[in-house]
C-alpha cells in the first residue's frame, strides 16, 4: 500500500454513490499517477461530476474509500456514533458532580458554579466537534473513529478544484479571489489581525505579491483590481484556476475547464494546463467533453457511463475501444 501511495496521488477503491434508488457512481476503482494528466469522460449523466464531488469531499460515498497523498481521507464513517458521546462527556461528568453536591448538601453557589463550568466545557467540546480542527481529527483517528474529510480538509491536504459552472466570488476583485484561495496557506488569526503585528502585515503584503504572480501565471496580468464578474468568460475560467492554484495543491481537479470557450480560448487553456504540469509539477484530473482537448493532453483517460467505469487506458486505446464508441454513439443496427 505504501508503494502505491508513493506513485499515486489519489487512489479510489470501489467508490459507490447512491441518491435514493439512483446509482450515480457504481464501484469505481481509479488512480491518478503522480505528475500525470488524467481525464474522465463520458456522456451526460454518466456520474463524472458526482465522482468529482466525492473526491473533493462534498459528498460522502455510499461505500468505498479514497486515499489521497497516502492518507485515507474519504470513506464511510467508522464508529462515528462514539463521537457524540465524547462531546457530551464533560456534561455527564458535570451532572454527576452536581448530583453528588446536591446529595451531600453542598452550598447552592457551588452547584451553580458547577453547572456553569459544565456548560462552558460542554460548549467547548461541542464547538470543537462541529468545527473539527485538524488536531481533533488526528485525535479521532488515533482512537479509531473515522469521519470523511470535508472540502476544506481536502484543500488543506493538497487538493485544488474548479467548478463546472464558474463559482468565483463575483463581487470580489480578481486579486481578492486569489487571496481567498490562499486561505489555508496564511496564518493570521482573528487575534493577530486585531493586533496587526508586523509579522501579519508582512504576510498580507506577501500574499498580495504571490496573488499577482499567480494571476500573471494564468495570463491575467494587470487585471488585479477588476471585479470577478466583470471579467470576460475565458478570463473567469483562468481566474478560477489561479484561485485553485493559490492553495498550492498537489492535485488539481478541473471540471470542464474549456466548457463554453471558443477555439482560441480553448487552445490557450490547453497551453495553460500543460504549463502547469511542466512548470509546477502538478498532477491534474480533468473532466472534459471536448474530445480534442482530452486526446491532446491526457496521459490516461477513464470513461464512465451510467455510473460504471467502462474503459481505462491511453487516449489511443480509448479511441479504438468499441465499448466507448457504443456509449457515445449507441449500438450499430444489425
Amino acid at each position, binding site marked *: 500500500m505504501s508503494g502505491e501511495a508513493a506513485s499515486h496521488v489519489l487512489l479510489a477503491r470501489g467508490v459507490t454513490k447512491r441518491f435514493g434508488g439512483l446509482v450515480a457512481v457504481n464501484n469505481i476503482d481509479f488512480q491518478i499517477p503522480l505528475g500525470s494528466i488524467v481525464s474522465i469522460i463520458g456522456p451526460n449523466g454518466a456520474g463524472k461530476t458526482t465522482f468529482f*464531488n466525492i473526491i473533493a469531499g462534498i459528498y460522502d460515498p455510499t461505500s468505498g474509500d479514497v486515499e489521497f497523498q497516502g492518507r485515507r481521507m474519504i470513506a464511510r464513517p467508522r464508529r462515528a456514533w462514539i463521537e457524540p458521546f465524547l462531546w457530551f462527556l464533560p456534561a455527564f461528568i458535570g451532572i454527576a458532580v452536581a448530583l453528588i453536591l446536591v446529595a451531600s448538601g453542598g452550598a447552592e453557589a457551588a452547584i451553580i458554579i458547577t453547572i456553569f463550568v459544565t456548560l462552558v466545557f460542554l460548549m467547548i467540546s461541542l464547538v470543537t466537534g462541529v468545527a473539527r480542527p485538524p488536531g481533533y481529527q488526528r485525535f479521532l483517528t488515533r482512537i479509531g473513529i473515522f469521519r470523511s474529510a470535508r*472540502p476544506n480538509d481536502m484543500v488543506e491536504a493538497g487538493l485544488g478544484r474548479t467548478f463546472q459552472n464558474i463559482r*468565483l466570488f463575483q463581487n470580489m476583485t480578481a486579486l481578492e479571489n486569489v487571496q481567498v*484561495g490562499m486561505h489555508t496557506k496564511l496564518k493570521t488569526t482573528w487575534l493577530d*489581525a486585531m493586533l496587526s503585528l508586523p509579522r501579519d502585515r508582512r504576510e498580507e503584503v506577501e500574499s498580495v505579491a504571490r496573488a499577482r504572480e499567480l494571476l500573471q501565471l494564468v495570463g491575467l496580468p494587470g487585471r488585479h483590481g477588476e471585479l470577478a464578474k466583470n471579467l470576460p468568460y475565458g478570463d473567469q475560467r483562468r481566474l478560477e484556476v489561479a484561485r485553485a492554484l493559490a*492553495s498550492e495543491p498537489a492535485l488539481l481537479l478541473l471540471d470542464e475547464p474549456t466548457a463554453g470557450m471558443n477555439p482560441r480560448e480553448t487552445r490557450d487553456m490547453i497551453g495553460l494546463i500543460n504549463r502547469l504540469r511542466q512548470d509546477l509539477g502538478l498532477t491534474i484530473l480533468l473532466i472534459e467533453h471536448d474530445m480534442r482537448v482530452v486526446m491532446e493532453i491526457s496521459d490516461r483517460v477513464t470513461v464512465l457511463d451510467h455510473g460504471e467505469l467502462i474503459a481505462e487506458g491511453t487516449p489511443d486505446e480509448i479511441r479504438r475501444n468499441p465499448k466507448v464508441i457504443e456509449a457515445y454513439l449507441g449500438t450499430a443496427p444489425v
Partner: protein
Amino acid sequence: MTAWIRSIVPPERLASIQAFSGRHRSTTVIVVMFIVSVVLFFWSDYPPFSLFQPHNAWIGGFVNAGVLILLAMGLNVVIGMAGLLDLGYAAFFAIGAYFYAFGASPFTGLHLPFLLLLFLGAICAALFGIVLGAPTLRLRGDYLAIVTLGFGEIVPILFLNLDRYTQGTNGITGVDRPNILGVQFPGIDQTLYFVLMAVVVTITMILLYRVQSSRLGRAWMAIREDELAAAANGINTVTTKLLAFAIGATTAGFAGVLNASKLTIVDPSQFLFTVSFTVATVIVLGGMGNIWGVAVAAFLIYMIQSVVLKQLTGFFDVVPIPILTDINFVQFQFLLFGIALVLMMLFRPEGLFPERRRARELHEGTDADGGDGANVDEDVLVEART
C-alpha cells in the same frame, strides 16, 4: 454622498486624504473620533444645541447613542460582513448587561472591578454567541432569521421569569457606577461616561476595521458570496461563521455592560425585540458592511429617536397646528422607521453610506451579466448531502 465633499475639497487633495486614510486606517479613526467627540462635547453648550436641551442631557444622549453605535457595529459583523441574518441580537446585549449587574450590585453583594467585568461580560456574551451560532450553522437566510429571533425572545423572557435570580420585572437596581483605577464615575455629570464611550467606540472601530481587511474578513466575504466555493477553497465555514457570531456578540457585551453601568438598573424590558429591530434598521440605513456608515447611522437614528421626535412633539404643543398638535411623535418612531426602511429598499437599497462592494451586489444586472442561475444545480446537490 461624495459629491458635496468634492464640491468643497479639491479632488487631488481628496485623493491624497483617501490614500492616507487607506494606509493608516487606525490613525484616521483615532483622529476623526477625537475631533468628532471634542466638537460634540463643546458644541452642545452653544446654540443651536443649547436651545433644546441642557449640556448634560446632550452628553447623556451621546453616551446612549454610543451604546447604539456599538450594537450596530457588532451586528454589522454578523449581517453585513458574514451575511448571517441575525434578528435576536438584543439577547447578547442583555447578557452583557445582566453579567455586569450580577458582578457589581447590592443584589448579589459582589462589587467586582468595572474593567474586569467589562471584559468578562463581553467574553460571556461571545460564548453565548457561539451557543447560538453552533446549532444554526446549517441554516441560511430566513431560516436563520427565525431561529435567532426565537433566541432573542427566549433570553429576556428567561431574565423575566427567573425572578429568584433576576428579580423579574423589577430588574436589578442599584448597579454600581464604573470605578476605573480609582476614578469613581459621578451620578449626574456624564462627562466621564462620554470619554469612556468615545474610547470604547474608537477601539472597537479600529479592531473591526483590522479584522475586516484581514484573512478572516475575506473569508466572511467569501462565505457571503458563495458558501460552497468558500469551503472548496479551504475555508472552514463552521469556525468562520462562529467567529462572526462571537465577535458580533462581544461588541454587544461591551454595549450591555456600559449601558447597565450608566443606567444603574437592568430589567428585561430594556432588551425587547424593538432593540434588535432598531439595530437591524440602523444597519440597513447605514449600509451593510460599512463600519463607519453604520456608526453614523446609529448616531443619527438615536438622535432622531430621542431628540428630534421629542422636540417635534414639544414644538407642536406650543405651536397650535390642528392635527399635528395631537400627535405624539415619539409614539410613532417605529412607524417612521418602517416607512424609512421601505423607502430605502425602494430607492437606495445599499444604504445611506454603502460599502463599495455591497452597492455592486445590489445593483447587479445593471452592469454585469449576472450568471447566477447556473449555480442553482450545485446548491441543490449540497442540500441533498446535508
